[in-house]
């Protein structure tokens, strides 16, 4: 165990800004990317449904 307290953990020996800036950016972007990819698929699906419905109408 490297840390005596939570405050010590977040301080990262004075490098907190750099360490959390790195891990935070990774976490944030790796959260956003799947959401965007999922939305792209949902958009494709809803467009498809519209097209199929339009074709069925007489």
């Amino acid at each position, binding site marked *: 165990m490297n840390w005596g307290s939570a405050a010590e953990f977040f301080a990262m020996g004075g490098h907190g800004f750099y*360490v959390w800036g790195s891990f935070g*950016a990774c976490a944030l972007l790796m959260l956003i990317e799947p959401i965007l990819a999922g939305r792209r698929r949902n958009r*494709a699906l809803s467009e498809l449904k519209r097209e199929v419905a339009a074709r069925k109408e007489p």
Partner: protein
Amino acid sequence: MSNRIINWFRFSSPQTFYPLAGKMIPWFWALAALFGIAGLYISFFVAPTDAQQGEGYRIIFVHVPASWMSMFIYLVMAFWAALGLGFNTRLSGMMASALAPTGALMAFLSLWTGALWGKPMWGTWWVWDARLTSELILFFLYLGFIALQSAIDDARRADKAGAVLALVGVVNIPIIYFSVKWWNTLHQGASVSLTRSPSMAQTMLWGMLLMALAFWMYAIAVALIRLRAIILERERHAGWVEALNEVKS
């Protein structure tokens, strides 16, 4: 005997790969989470403080995986692009297109975490050194690939143009990899190499490898989601797409 051999070409059709990809995605998410939790635990609680760099070195646990993936995804992307160019298979081009944004993200994260590591250790966010510059070029190659493909309306022609760009850009990958050997750079040498034992503590190495696996599984999962979106976009006039349950409902 012959019918026991899996016909791999069957999976090269979007129709068969679409449902298969859908089944694979949750597994890759699960693996990414598993490796990620183990990797983060080692990164922060098991790996010791570095004698020279203190706690700041912990950036290595995201910096190296992001950098590895940025190069690896490019190679995989170029592989699919070449396959599509050579055999004119539909799915290959879609694979390449699905990988590009994830590769760009990894290259960006590599540069971002590198800047945040460089500032406390070297005293600067950025230097025009061989390793950093070639990684920046990689980032621009991804962006160029995406921009070129979105500028061409016809998907098959976009695939071909993108494939040529991707293949020309492959030359940059060995340049990134060997840049720390070929030139005098501020960037430190390779921490892990195939030819000699790693220059770091065992636990640090394990943390890095687990995080790299997590990034890898993440990249596959998100690329497969995007691939499914691309398949739906491009195959929307095909009969099989209309027969899908998610479209019918």
